[in-house]
């Protein structure tokens, strides 16, 4: 699988993780270009369908990241996300998709380093894991 460069899409919550990613930028922390963010208002507003759609479109992994439990800007959105992702991972596994391909991470606005580390780690992990199997099967 030499030369395989994964494509990772991130759903970042506006209040914590997107700002955390901004902090990574302000701090000039480097991470690979494999990661592309989509800004959402809240992890609680990430419909599991968005994740499935992203994987079906051919992304190799999805990161969902929001405020730490108890810190949600909208009080309880991240708890809803946590439950949804737990179920989604089980479902995806049943369809033969490694659950490493969907990752939920709590990154606050002050955790630029954690954001960069998470992306670096994820890119490395997915590089080892190989391309999203759906790509070949569905021909996307």
């Amino acid at each position, binding site marked *: 699988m030499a030369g395989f460069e994964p494509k990772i899409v991130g759903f970042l919550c506006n209040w914590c993780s997107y700002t955390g990613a901004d902090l990574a930028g302000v701090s000039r922390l480097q991470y690979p270009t494999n990661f*592309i963010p989509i800004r959402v208002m809240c992890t609680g507003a990430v419909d599991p*369908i968005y994740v499935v759609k*992203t994987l079906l479109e051919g992304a190799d992994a999805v990161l969902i990241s929001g405020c730490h439990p108890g810190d949600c800007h909208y*009080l309880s959105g991240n708890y809803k996300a946590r439950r949804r992702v737990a179920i989604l991972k089980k479902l995806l596994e049943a369809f033969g998709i490694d659950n490493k391909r969907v990752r939920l991470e709590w990154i606050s606005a002050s955790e630029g380093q954690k954001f960069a580390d998470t992306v670096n780690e994820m890119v490395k992990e997915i590089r080892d894991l190989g391309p999203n199997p759906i790509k070949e099967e569905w021909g996307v």
Partner: protein
Amino acid sequence: MNENKIAVFICTCNNQIGTNIDLDELESKLNSSSNNITVKRHDSLCKQEGQKFLMDTVKDSEIDRVVIAACTPRTYEELIRKGVIESGIGSNLYEQIGIREQCEWVHTDKSKATSKAVDLVNCGIAKVAIAEKLEDEELPIKCKDVLIIGGGIAGMRAALDLATRGLHCFIVERASELGGMANKLSSNTLAEVKSEIPVIEDVMNNDNIEVIVGSEINDIKGGLGNYSVSLKPQEGKNDERQFEVGGIIIATGTKLFEPARIPEFGYHNSDVITSLELEEMLKIQSITSPSNGTVPKRINFIQCVGSRDDTKGNSYCSLVCCTYSLRQALEIKALNPNIQIYIHYMDLRGPYSGFEELYRDAQDKGVQLIRGRVAEVQQVDGKMMLRAENIDLEELLEWYTDLVVLAVGQEPSEGNDKLSELLYIPLDIDGFLGEYNYRWDIVDRRGISIIGSAQGPRDLRHTLKDATRAATELAELFVKGSVTIDGYSHIDPNRCMGCGICVALCPYNAITLKNLEDFETEEVRQVSEVDITVCQSCGACAMSCPSNVPVLTKNTADQIFTEIEALI
């Protein structure tokens, strides 16, 4: 097919963008992707000339969708957005992409970074291309009265500032009189902000201000321009007061740390007093040991009582104690230079201006500053004995003292949790009411503002500044008389089945079931209705609806799908 004309503005942030992203290539790639797209470049869209450039371009080229590739929307979106909105582009028809923080600054490989930037901008283009103009985003503000919770100096300042602008306000104060903690402060402490300190009589006699003392908030419902407030009955009365307001200012302040929680410091001794009790002595210009009424020879200050102490107090620093202890020491020295003063501290912290001068002055006047913790204050042979350490000299201290002043920290005011629940304001890690968008507005989109030390310990100057700022911003909003709601959830009544799942899930109780009469069958059925003054656009309803009816105006599911497609 969509024939909207889309303008992409690339802002170079005064050459901060362009080192790792090849802007020429970005521009040509975007230009070649569609005929509907116009790409423009500017050095600083957030400046006046940038705003003018933006508005002129939108006007000249008859643009109806705007994408901005610049710094992160989390910093300058509000500024850049002004020009976009002024040109008549709806709030959901533009998108700002943070290619600076999310691309330029985190990647060094130029070709890869450029292609990522193209992806990011394409994603924004895809998003605005399918957005539809909202019909009516301007909402009139019905009620322009203001509720002020807390009648300390912050609340009173805000009330006076609102009243002079012709707005009517209610001050609800739990205690039996106005003034709060500042009532107990000596005139020297208040001197710095004297001209701004509100006078209680001015507040009481102002026709635009209604003062309700001895009462607390019972319930608050509604949203911007439309709050209904009910109060608990005043002591000795039965009537539950109810009134309507348009905005709310929270100025509940703090309470002092209860020093008896640290028994070693011997607060049960009458000669161990808190810094606020010392203020009361300074107010009458007479320093005495309470036990025998004599002038103390030696006074020991203990800093950080209940602050920066996880085991017995709170983990945070109360910010103002170092400054006021130094000021108090100087005041005592001015009254009686023969009194020996020792200040036991961990670190001297002075976040506000003027601290360094106080510090030097105190040293010049012979106030002894001793770095180290105090172990205990004890009665030995009828005298008070203090045991402490001096870290700098590496020695243990054991000496008699006539008066001990505990520089007590501050804690969240009682009832904070209730306000947090009623108004959906998250508490921060220390239990204070969380600050809002500190970089921009002090008044949030719901017309609620938290001022003064309700957000955490704060000095007088900043407390008063907060109050004036909140009053100014609220007045500006109310005088304008209407507000543009930026992003909310829209529920189409014709598609809603009235199952009520979203009603239960909405964290802000913004959704209610309303009766709707079907035009053809004349049947009445229930449908969900969103109060957009309360809605915060979190998306809980949109995610929970079995028929996918609720739509976030700024993040529709279709928009996210096209974004995903554009990225991959």
